[in-house]
């Protein structure tokens, strides 16, 4: 460690020196795993779930826009080559064609990255799939902050974009269990859906909580007297970890997992929020237009004068870098959640 004796003796300089001491983490491959080391995982749960669903429903077909391997769609393509359609790097075609396939009675699952689905193909999803209420299933990789590649690939506002689309069901799964159980339900539900895909080695978390995924339902994973976490997506995993960590501080935390963002299970969530406990939402998404605002609007609509504390990404374009660094920087890491809750409780 090279101590810079000439530097002003400030906290900032000390922090900079401490940072310099550690080797800087590298931005990993496009899709960094957010699994903790040693954590139980399942590989490509979406791809395997889609194959299983397709074995039972011969209407299911798969499409992608040159991202089959990166959205676990390749598993389906290998199992059902005649039911898989490669549309090339053409997202407007991908979703227009998905709507056309659905018009003929098929049940398409169409995958790309969330940024491209939400930002690039919105008009096609909106008018070709959602307005006629077709069973088009959008599968979006890299939702929220799950890549270090910067704003071109970080879909930090995908739910904000999609929540305004009538008829669209939005699912933000936590783990491999959620994905495995959600896929057949998405196929069975009428109308378009958007799945915030977790791919590759996806943690298996919810099996410890006697949990089953039900489309449109929030589930209380654990009870607690002091704080209630309302979470979705991978932040439910972090919420459960934070709850355990807070127990060491004698803080008793309940966790409510709400994987379906729209239509939102306000009944279950409001029942949990309408108590004296500190209410915290946790999401892998911008603080604008995602879970926090979904909960907030439900709270206000119900006339509850209840404060809700958001754990969410800031309303800004995020940095590139290593995922652990970024999750820490933007407050999604367990330590940051614990610190925020303790500060709130004073």
């Amino acid at each position, binding site marked *: 460690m090279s101590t810079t004796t000439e530097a002003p003796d400030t906290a900032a300089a000390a922090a900079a020196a401490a940072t310099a001491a550690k080797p800087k983490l590298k931005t990993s491959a496009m899709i960094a795993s957010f699994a903790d080391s040693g954590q139980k995982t399942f590989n490509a749960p979406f791809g395997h779930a889609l194959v299983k669903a397709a074995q039972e429903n011969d209407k299911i077909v798969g499409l992608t826009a040159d991202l089959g391997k990166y959205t676990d769609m390749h598993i389906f393509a290998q199992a059902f080559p005649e039911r898989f359609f490669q549309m090339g790097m*053409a997202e407007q*075609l991908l979703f*227009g064609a998905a709507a*056309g396939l659905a018009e003929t009675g098929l049940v398409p699952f169409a995958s790309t990255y969330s940024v491209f689905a939400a930002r690039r193909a919105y008009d096609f999803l909106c*008018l070709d799939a959602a307005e006629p209420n077709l069973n088009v299933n959008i599968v979006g990789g890299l939702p929220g902050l799950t890549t270090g590649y910067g704003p071109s690939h970080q879909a930090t506002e995908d739910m904000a974009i999609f929540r305004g689309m009538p008829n669209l069901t939005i699912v933000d799964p936590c783990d491999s269990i959620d994905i495995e159980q959600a896929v057949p339900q998405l196929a069975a539900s009428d109308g378009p859906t958007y799945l915030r895909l977790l791919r590759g080695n996806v943690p298996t978390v919810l099996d410890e909580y006697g949990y089953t995924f039900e489309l449109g339902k929030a589930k209380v994973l654990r009870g607690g007297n002091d704080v209630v976490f309302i979470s979705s997506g991978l932040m439910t995993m972090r919420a459960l970890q934070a709850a355990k960590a807070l127990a060491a501080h004698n803080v008793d935390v309940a966790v409510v997992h709400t994987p379906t963002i729209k239509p939102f299970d306000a009944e279950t969530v409001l029942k949990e929020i309408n108590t004296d406990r500190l209410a915290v939402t946790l999401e892998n998404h911008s603080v604008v237009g995602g879970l926090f605002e979904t909960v907030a609007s439900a709270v206000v609509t119900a006339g509850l004068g209840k404060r809700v504390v958001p754990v969410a990404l800031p309303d800004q374009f995020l940095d590139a870098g290593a995922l652990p660094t970024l999750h820490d920087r933007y407050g999604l890491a367990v330590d940051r959640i614990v610190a925020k809750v303790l500060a709130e409780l004073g």
Partner: protein
Amino acid sequence: MPTETLQDAAPKGRALQPAVSPERVDKIGAAAYRIRHHALNMGEVQGQGYVGQALGAADMLATVYGDQLRFKAEDPHWEARDRFLLSTGHYAIGHYAALAEAGIVPVEELETYGSDDSRLPMSGMSTYTPGMEISGGSLGHGLTIAVGMALGLRYQGSPARVFNFLSDGELDEGSTWEAAMGAHHHQLGNLTAMVDINALQADGKTDTVLRTEPVTEKWESFGWYTQRVDGNDVGALLAASDNAAAQAAAVGRPSVILCDTKVGRGVPLLENREKAHFMRIEEHEWQTCREQLTAGYEGKASA
């Protein structure tokens, strides 16, 4: 997956279909006349509308509905039907007239065009109108949906063909070309695009807004079986349609018929008016328009 190669499916060198009979031309010409008449009536009730486009495209619509499409008027959702996708939602006035001509929409319903609670909104929507396969209007969507439909029909063993009506203005949209590539890549031989080239779009002449020519070469270079005809010549439209039908196949080349049309066609008052995307027609002029249309049609018929 498709096994036939593009070269095998290419129609080049294949003999053109036998000449179109005068009876077919007369039949479709009469249908086009009635479609134009319906469009003028709808325009008058509404006091406005995309009458110029409807008149220009009437021969194309008459050819498709009167000669090419397989459908059941009493069962618009008949599974084995050919699909006709109107990408240009604002051409709905012409499409409704064609649907009436086809017996899918009652003629007397046409006067509700653009009125509150009508099944015939100003911009075509599948959720409103029987026989309307897609909700067009956001331009550049139709051909992408058509690609999916053709894939889905082929996968399910249907021999149905898919027709997509689009405009030259839609060639501005990148998605049209994504779809053109996709249709060729997937060898969608049962897909036919019909492009209304009226050389006019919202802000003016196409070549002043965004030059799309050379249009023929563009489609050819995308691998499509490409024909370009006078889109107001029923005989030429029928012959081109026959050629496209003759080479249609589950696995093959998609085909496009590029149709040069004239906005306001059939009504000299409108043909000669300054071209506009949204043509202004005074209240007293509608009757003149109808009279000119009829005089022109009867003059041609008796000639």
